[in-house]
């Protein structure tokens, strides 16, 4: 149940199966898939000397190279490959599809291979982007895809196809034939569940795995049942880097600064061997991160000191031996120091601490008058527009049914603060998408007597950290799942329910995108005593990921974009 390893296995196998000088041809999607799990140098060490896009017609003839072509079986890629076969540029072709290929496409390909250049055709089910070992995304976002069609409860057909294919390949790559559950109020979740179930029936020979003790579970959740998590400012390292700087295909671009006028691009790898510091700190919160990075710098400095005194040949030898490691360390230290300093600059500049405190209060406590006053005050302050919209969005969600809700006033305040009207309008769209009517359960713990009592209890216990009070709804869902208490009334099965509810391998998939906050929940859950004892492992996925949403990007017409523009924490809900 490690998605990075699963994809890596496929990639390594396809490259190692062919020896000699090789070129690797990819399409738009597989380029991202591959770049998530491997590096240029790994490819080089396996004799892959050229990497190019299949659709690039400018490629030159290199008959002495063998070509490994890894593409999604989309009509475009098939057509490009047919064109390639008509005028082959490489000596031999080894064709790998990332998903199930249609019989008709195979026929078309075979007919165009007059020179008999294709040596093998295989399906390797690596059709998703593996971000962390337990986190993946399908990158369904504009401009390539829009998630919804005309209303926020129906799929746009291409996105549905892509999601189904992505899930099917996920299941195959992890060798799972699961039972499928979805959220009762989610039409999109149900549709997707049906599609996946259908493919599993159609391609039953592919899904013949040895049955374990318990059948795996695919749980399809809908973003609209938890619109709050993506609106909150996150304080863990990976989530912050993504939210404030943007992680795109594992790379982060640092904005230009005084001592670095050009701005740099750094690679963030979650692999422990490539970047041990990041791997061990990605889920640390900002405060602990500061302490850790200081320690890290200290180690570096002590090493640097010993390297300064070179007097004898022996010293020199020692230096040479340690030098590469030292260089690597110094590169890594400077990378993280600049990342963290950039983060703290943003935290200060955007007044994130104050904003976050209010966000948490809106998400967790029911205190209308105080919250309203704070929101009004912060709108007047020089914080980014996105933060203001987010605050009002949270307020709107929280006090949607509060009789004294002052949402119209707040909206006009936003307009007065110079925020364009189409951005202000996202808030009403958000309510339409994920308002109280649309949601399945009471997200805010109830405003009734019981709910108030519960929040009162919380107040008594006191909170550890005012900025991280909120826990995503996923956490609760997973806990009830672990205790076999997830009711079929809210989370029905698409087929007949199995005899026992006990689960071990769980794949959770969010229609509408997944956040790093939820990734952390899953990571903590997998590491928890209770889950370990029961042998429960969770892998989390979502329709979107990778690209940070930002207000300065061109506004699209899709629903998704507009919601996303106020939810920066949501992976690419834009």
């Amino acid at each position, binding site marked *: 149940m490690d998605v990075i390893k699963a994809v890596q296995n*496929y990639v390594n196998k396809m490259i190692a199966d062919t020896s000699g000088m090789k070129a690797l041809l990819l399409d738009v999607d597989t380029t991202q898939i591959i770049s998530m799990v491997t590096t240029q140098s790994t490819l080089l060490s396996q004799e892959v000397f050229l990497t190019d896009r299949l659709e690039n017609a400018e490629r030159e003839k290199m008959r002495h*190279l063998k070509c490994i072509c890894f593409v999604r079986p989309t009509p475009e890629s098939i057509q490009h490959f047919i064109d390639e076969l008509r005028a082959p540029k490489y000596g031999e072709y080894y064709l790998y599809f990332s998903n199930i290929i249609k019989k008709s496409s195979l026929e078309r390909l075979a007919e165009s291979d007059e020179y008999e250049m294709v040596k093998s055709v295989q399906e390797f089910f690596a059709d998703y982007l593996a971000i962390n070992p337990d986190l993946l995304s399908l990158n369904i976002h504009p401009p390539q895809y829009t998630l919804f069609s005309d209303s926020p409860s129906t799929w746009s057909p291409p996105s549905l196809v892509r999601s189904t294919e992505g899930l099917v390949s996920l299941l195959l790559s992890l060798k799972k034939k699961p039972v499928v559950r979805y959220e009762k109020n989610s039409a999109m979740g149900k549709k997707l569940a049906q599609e996946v179930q259908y493919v599993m029936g159609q391609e039953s020979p592919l899904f013949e795995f040895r049955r374990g003790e318990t059948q795996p579970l695919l749980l399809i959740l809908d973003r609209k049942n938890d619109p709050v998590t993506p609106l909150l400012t996150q304080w863990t390292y990976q989530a912050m880097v993504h939210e404030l700087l943007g992680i795109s295909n594992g790379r982060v671009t640092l904005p230009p600064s005084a001592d670095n006028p050009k701005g740099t691009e750094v690679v963030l790898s979650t692999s422990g061997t490539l970047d041990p510091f990041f791997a061990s700190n990605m889920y640390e919160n900002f405060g602990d991160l500061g302490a850790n990075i200081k320690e890290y710098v200290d180690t570096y400095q002590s090493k640097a000191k010993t390297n300064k005194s070179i007097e004898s040949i022996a010293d020199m030898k020692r230096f*040479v031996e340690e030098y590469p490691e030292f260089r690597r360390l110094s590169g890594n230290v400077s990378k993280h120091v600049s990342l963290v300093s950039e983060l703290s600059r943003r935290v200060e500049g955007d007044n994130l601490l104050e904003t976050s405190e209010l966000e948490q209060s809106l998400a967790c406590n029911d205190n209308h008058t105080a919250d309203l006053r704070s929101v009004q005050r912060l709108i007047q302050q020089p914080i980014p527009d996105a933060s203001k919209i987010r605050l009002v969005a949270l307020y709107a969600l929280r006090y949607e049914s509060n009789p004294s809700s002052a949402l119209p006033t707040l909206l006009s305040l936003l307009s007065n603060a110079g925020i364009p009207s189409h951005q202000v309008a996202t808030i009403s769209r958000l309510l339409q998408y994920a308002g109280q009517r649309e949601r399945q359960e009471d997200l805010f713990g109830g405003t009734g007597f019981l709910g108030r009592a519960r929040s009162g209890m919380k107040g008594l216990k006191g909170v550890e950290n005012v900025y991280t009070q909120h826990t995503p709804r996923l956490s609760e869902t997973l806990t009830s799942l672990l205790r076999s208490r997830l009711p079929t009334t809210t989370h029905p099965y698409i087929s007949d329910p199995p005899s026992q509810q006990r689960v071990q391998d769980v794949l959770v998939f969010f229609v509408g995108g997944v956040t790093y906050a939820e990734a952390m929940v899953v990571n903590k859950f997998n590491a928890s005593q209770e889950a370990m004892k029961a042998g429960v492992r969770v892998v989390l996925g979502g329709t979107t990921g990778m690209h940070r949403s930002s207000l300065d990007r061109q506004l699209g017409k899709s629903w998704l974009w507009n919601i996303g523009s106020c939810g920066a924490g949501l992976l690419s809900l834009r």
Partner: protein
Amino acid sequence: MHARSKSAGPFTTTTPRTLGPPQSSSSASSSRDTSAVRRPPLTPSGSEPSLSSYGQPESSPSRIQDFPLSCPICNHSADTLQALNAHLDTDHAELPSSQKEGFRSWFEKNMGRARSFQTTMLQEKLRGLDSFDRAGSLAGLLAFDTPIPELTSMSASGGYGSCGTVVPSSTPNTDTDGKEYLYIDSASAVHRNHTESFVALRRKVVDKSYLELRRLEKRLHKLLSLLSTTYDHDPSPRISLLRTVTLSRTQQKALEQSVIKWEDDKAVVNCPICRSMFSFSRRKHHCRVCGRVVCGSPSTDCSSGVEFAVNGKDALSSPIILRVCHDCKKTLFGKNDFKNHSVTVAQCIKLYDNLLQYKRGIESMVPRFYEELDRMQAVRNLESNHDPPAGEALRLRRRLVDAFAQYDAISKRIRNLPAESLAQEKLQIAIHQMATQFMSVNLVPLQSVQRSAGTPLTTSQGAAVDEVQNTLSEDAETKLREQLMVLEEQRFLVQGMVEDAKRQRQLDEVATLTKSLEELDLEAQLTAQATARKRLGLK
């Protein structure tokens, strides 16, 4: 003829056969039309060599040369299989199809017989027999020397037969019923192999085009032989220009039309290939292979004159030019053109092979070196006071460093090869990068091992060195050399890091690294000079 065949490779010797009727095609084609097999009336008796050896007769053309054979139909003698084949193709090309079948089986047997003889033995016996003086048939006269484009490799390379062998042996087997084999076991990931069904699908298409190719080739061959015989019987002066004139237009036309019926001019309004209307400026032409009316516009290349070099008895023979339409050209020459596309980067490939050899060598040497070190460590631990002789480890280390140096040199040569295209240049740079990477991966642990083995190793090395070279000055020289080596290694590592940094676009790092690289270069130079001075001083 031999001189000619040498220059054109093995393909040309079999050229007439390529153009010939299907009986000379490879086994794949013969198995297709075995439905009408009949015993031939003219099958010679005698030895019955195994037919199975017919599989790749073309793979050893040298062995079947110089062996007297005779035609089964007219008993005409020929000296080589090629000559006989050509004779069959030209003189007996129009056998009724039933006769052809028997003919083929006879041919196959003789082929087998020819192969079963040892060439070395025969060469002694047959020395002095010149195959072409005796060849009275057209076989000797008519050979196509590197036609432009070449009509070659189809039969020589096994052509169609290779279709069955394209499935790499490493791919999983398929079920007998043709269903895709599923790879499901706990160790490997799920995948599905479509190669088998793909090849089956492709075979249909390739089969069809192959048959078409055969048909057209045969027709073209007939036409060419007709034309060339006419030339040969013509007594006019052997100057190509005049000769074309001497053969009257109508005469040639009649000959051409005897091979393929020409399409009626009047029936065609548009060029079937480019779809443009014929007019005064866009004239109608006939493709001499398929007989269709096509235009001859140079811009669309719907049809054009193709030169066929016909090698007669004399060297003065001229090429025959025939108009061939685009479609026929593609069918006839497309595949061979494609296959014969010259590889101009042979140098790069050769060097790359060298590089791989050194890499393998290093990979096999490194573990041995470690073993040796471990052994030494163990010995040292046993006898704490006594240093074990470091001879073997030293030797290995030297060899390793040598290999690394060679490896590095080759990789640099690859990078510095002149590249004719951007992609090739990129490739060469990538190979160099791989080499750099490989070296930094393998050199670093080598050094750290030495360190972990500790200074005792160095002293033991020193001791070993002392044993060999007793004089003090030589020792100093060794030291300098060692220093130089260290510098070289260091320089190399830094170079690797520069490239790394460049890849990661850390430009500030690149700057500092480049600077340190320059310093290292300087240092290395100084040390090298010092070493040289020492050596000179010694002498």
